[in-house]
């Protein structure tokens, strides 16, 4: 009989574009210390460690090994997973699996990225080799731009809607001391005045390259209840991959593709008795690398019907005070240390369920939350978190 698993502590760094004051191991150490402090535990209490990070981003082979001393891997079991952008999500999944299995009573899950020590775009371009795709990849940017223009055509979403999402993200970020971009944007007009990065994406539309780390501590039920009176249960998780789209990495002008998010959401909701997502789930933290994608994700995760994602933002439904808050932390548009990002999604949901999200705590009482991760090409990890099992 598998153990039930709960999150008993979370910690993250103050995410910034550059952290010249710390080395990568020191930066991860900050997040680990923060998580331990939150759980009131020490490394003695941690039985295993799971790391999520893509080695090419900082040009380090076996990056988890380099962190062994500073990140608490020293003399602990564990391993690193690397599934692209969803690496942190996969680390949470595997950590959860190992605690559920009974092999360990506690697990520390770490995601991190120190973007100032590497070149993300270059690394993403290296996901192709000269054998297939050299020179054709423009990193993630070109793909998101194409995806955005397809969405506008198919759904009727406008640049105003994208700007509204951007404004929502910034409002959340300004209330989240850990967020990276806290711009103080005042209006949709202000955003529409800013220049294009790659049409129709504006500089503001796209996530930053952040340096940061996030750690969560998982425990089996018996331990969890001893450690905290506010355990956040990992009720379920699902990972769905997919073959690359026929016509691009993220966009689907063909209309032929089945989306991994769709399959993941369908299965996850069905086996957890969720038939009306916006009612049965109280909030979500999604992995949306651009504000355009956030609107699309509303559809893929069944928060609304197809081609209607832009309506949710137009009606303010996904705001912090809204009926179904999405990304109250500012989301990925405000903060994206890639390896850490999925772990941040999980940590932020946990804080919301605990009522510990401070200024960006949502108005709705959060008993159930869903955290998602995105990897390339279009891989999905979803984690369902609950206050009560």
């Amino acid at each position, binding site marked *: 009989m598998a153990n039930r698993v709960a999150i008993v502590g979370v910690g993250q760094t103050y995410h910034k574009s550059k952290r*010249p*004051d710390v080395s990568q191991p020191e930066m991860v150490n900050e997040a680990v210390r923060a998580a331990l402090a939150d759980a009131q535990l020490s490394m003695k209490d941690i039985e295993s460690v799971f790391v999520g990070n893509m080695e090419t981003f900082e*040009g380090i082979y076996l990056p988890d090994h380099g962190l062994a001393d500073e990140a608490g891997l020293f003399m602990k079991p564990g391993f690193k997973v690397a599934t692209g952008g969803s690496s942190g999500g996969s680390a949470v999944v595997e950590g959860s699996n190992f605690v559920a299995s009974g092999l360990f009573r506690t697990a520390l899950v770490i995601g991190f990225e120190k973007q100032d020590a590497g*070149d993300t*775009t*270059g*690394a993403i*371009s*290296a996901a192709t*080799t*000269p*054998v*297939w*795709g*050299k*020179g*054709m990849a*423009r*990193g993630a*940017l*070109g793909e998101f*731009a*194409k995806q955005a*223009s*397809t969405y506008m055509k198919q759904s009727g979403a406008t640049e105003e809607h994208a700007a509204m999402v951007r404004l929502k993200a910034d409002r959340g970020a300004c209330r989240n001391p850990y967020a990276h971009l806290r711009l103080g944007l005042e209006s949709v007009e202000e955003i529409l005045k800013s220049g*294009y*990065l*790659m*049409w129709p994406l504006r500089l503001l539309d796209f996530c930053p390259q952040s340096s940061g780390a996030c750690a969560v501590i998982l425990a089996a039920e018996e331990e969890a209840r001893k450690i905290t009176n506010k355990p956040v249960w990992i009720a379920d998780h699902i990972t769905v991959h997919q*073959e690359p789209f*026929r*016509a*691009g990495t993220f*966009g689907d*002008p*063909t209309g032929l593709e089945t989306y991994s998010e769709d399959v993941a959401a369908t299965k996850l909701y069905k086996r957890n008795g969720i038939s009306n997502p916006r009612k049965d789930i109280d909030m979500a933290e999604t992995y949306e690398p651009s504000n355009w994608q956030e609107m699309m994700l509303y559809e893929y995760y069944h928060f609304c019907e197809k081609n209607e994602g832009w309506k949710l933002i137009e009606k303010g439904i996904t705001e912090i005070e809204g009926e179904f808050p999405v990304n109250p932390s500012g989301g990925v548009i405000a903060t994206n240390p890639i390896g850490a990002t999925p772990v941040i999604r999980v940590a932020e949901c946990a804080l919301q369920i605990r009522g510990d999200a401070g200024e960006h705590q949502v108005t709705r009482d959060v008993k159930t939350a869903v955290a998602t991760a995105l990897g390339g090409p279009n891989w999905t990890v979803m984690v369902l978190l609950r206050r009560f099992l």
Partner: protein
Amino acid sequence: MVKEPSQEHIKIPIAMSRPYRWATGRYLGKLYKEARDNKKLVTNRCPKCKELLWPPRPVCGRCKVEAGEDWVEMSDKGTVIQYTYLVYPLWDPHVGDRVAEDYPNATILLDGGVYLVHKLEEKDPEKLKAGMRVQAVWKEEERGQGLNDILYFGTIEQ
């Protein structure tokens, strides 16, 4: 007012070349050979879903079956579905430098039904539009680099 001395960080730039020798394998190898020898694009078809696989390979990932050797020659003409224009240089690890591609990057639907991402010869943004007809412009010499044997796709009449 006294100015605080600013912290100096020691920077040690490390630039390393990491050479690789990638094998094309059998299936991609066939595509490479036809492109090099005959300026033709070929790929194989999945026996189950009947779709053309792109790139050619031994299995159909969607059907999860072996794909076999049903090879098809494809037209190198197609229609532009989407295009985008890179404005500033991005780091290209295959070149080891920042590169701003001169040519627009496009998703092209080849007449055979396969989607190909490649460059467009037409650089004038006024003249670019989705739906325009294009055809591969092949390198005349020194082919043998697979899809890079096509310089770009040039505009043709409807």
